[in-house]
């Protein structure tokens, strides 16, 4: 586990080996899908090998226990009363970024900016004092990441 603390090692493992590693323990164990980061800028391939569902992605972005993207971002979701003011407005994120760039920014925005406030939604390691219920788990599943990517690409 200690070795995973280092981003360098992490990148080497993810980029080089292309293996899937098991992180979670217990019943809710989910396989952590390996992925390849291109030029520190994007993750070109879908984590699930399939395109996500934009309607489900919109739900994930709203859900406080899942993406909760609205905590920090403004999104074109008028039926939700509170939109955060922490990160940039994502209303046109789909024209600013490619799907691969969006995927990297959701999987682990710290690769783009190590100091960012935004959590890495698909990085179950390199964290401090994670509470028991969440240990070894990613915030979103690979499928949910793909759904959010699919949703954001519709925002033009």
């Amino acid at each position, binding site marked *: 586990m200690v070795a995973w603390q280092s981003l360098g090692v992490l990148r080497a493992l993810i980029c080089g080996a292309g293996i899937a590693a098991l992180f979670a323990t217990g019943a809710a164990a989910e396989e952590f899908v390996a992925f390849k980061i291109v030029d520190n800028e994007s993750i070109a391939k879908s984590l699930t090998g399939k395109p996500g569902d934009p309607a489900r992605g919109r739900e994930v972005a709203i859900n*406080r226990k899942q993406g*909760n993207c*609205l*905590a*920090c971002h403004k999104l074109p979701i008028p039926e939700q*009363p*509170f*939109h*955060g*003011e*922490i990160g940039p407005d994502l209303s046109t994120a789909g024209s600013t970024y490619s799907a691969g760039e969006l995927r990297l920014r959701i999987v682990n925005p*710290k690769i783009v900016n190590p100091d960012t*406030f935004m*959590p*890495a939604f698909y990085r179950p390691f390199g*964290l*401090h*004092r*994670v*509470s*028991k*219920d*969440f240990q070894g*788990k990613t*915030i979103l599943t690979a499928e949910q990441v793909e759904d959010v990517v699919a949703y954001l690409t519709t925002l033009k």
Partner: protein
Amino acid sequence: MRRIALAAVAASGLTVMLAGTALSDETDWGAYEVGDKRSGYTYAATETRSIQDDDFENPAMLWVDTGQELWDTVEGEAGKACASCHDDAAVSMAEVGAIYPVYYEPRGKLINIEQRINLCRTENMKAKAWKWESRELLSMTAFVRNQARGRPVAVKIDGPAAPFYEKGKEFYYQRRGQLDMACKNCHEDNAGNMIRANLLSQGQSNGFPTYRLKWQKVGSLHRRFRGCNSQVRATPYKAGSDEYVNLELFLADRGRGLPVETPAVRN
């Protein structure tokens, strides 16, 4: 006297608002703003502030009153009350709320007000320590700190306190939990910004113990720490842990100069 002074300050803040000046940045917050430091009061809703401004409306004053009663209550094998040693709290406790936590030589570490109270109970009164977050300990802490209301927070962070201050500081900047967030992400970088339905404040500690509308009761600063830790899906520390007492000193220094506001009212 002090109670009246703070209420007057609050009222003047309100007048400015009513006069049409923009909220927050341009509002004159009086004693609640010192340089770039702003009490949680200045981020609270108008109704919340007005509850705090009026001691008869402020539900936390019930805890302070209980503390006053306990102050005079004899308990324990030594047959003493707090008042037996400390007499009039308005005099003997005038400063405590502004200068704690302090370095405590016999233990070689910091202690906060709750811990000082329990030391007096176990050692001087030969009474049982009160449990953390019990009505008694919250009431006595609120009562003691209320004696310093209006005094600027002025903790000591040099000398033997220095290494503990450094640990508190480290805690403040350490990211934690599955959400990988540090205190500073919310309260230093984003004070004044909405995080979904919540307006982030500077996370100052000058009003604790605080009546939180969400809790429907008075709660300790360490309860708040536990809440902020759990929020980011981190394992919180125990209330009264060294980690939290060190953090308490760092926060007090971070809000140095803000008036003690206990008992504050917050959303």
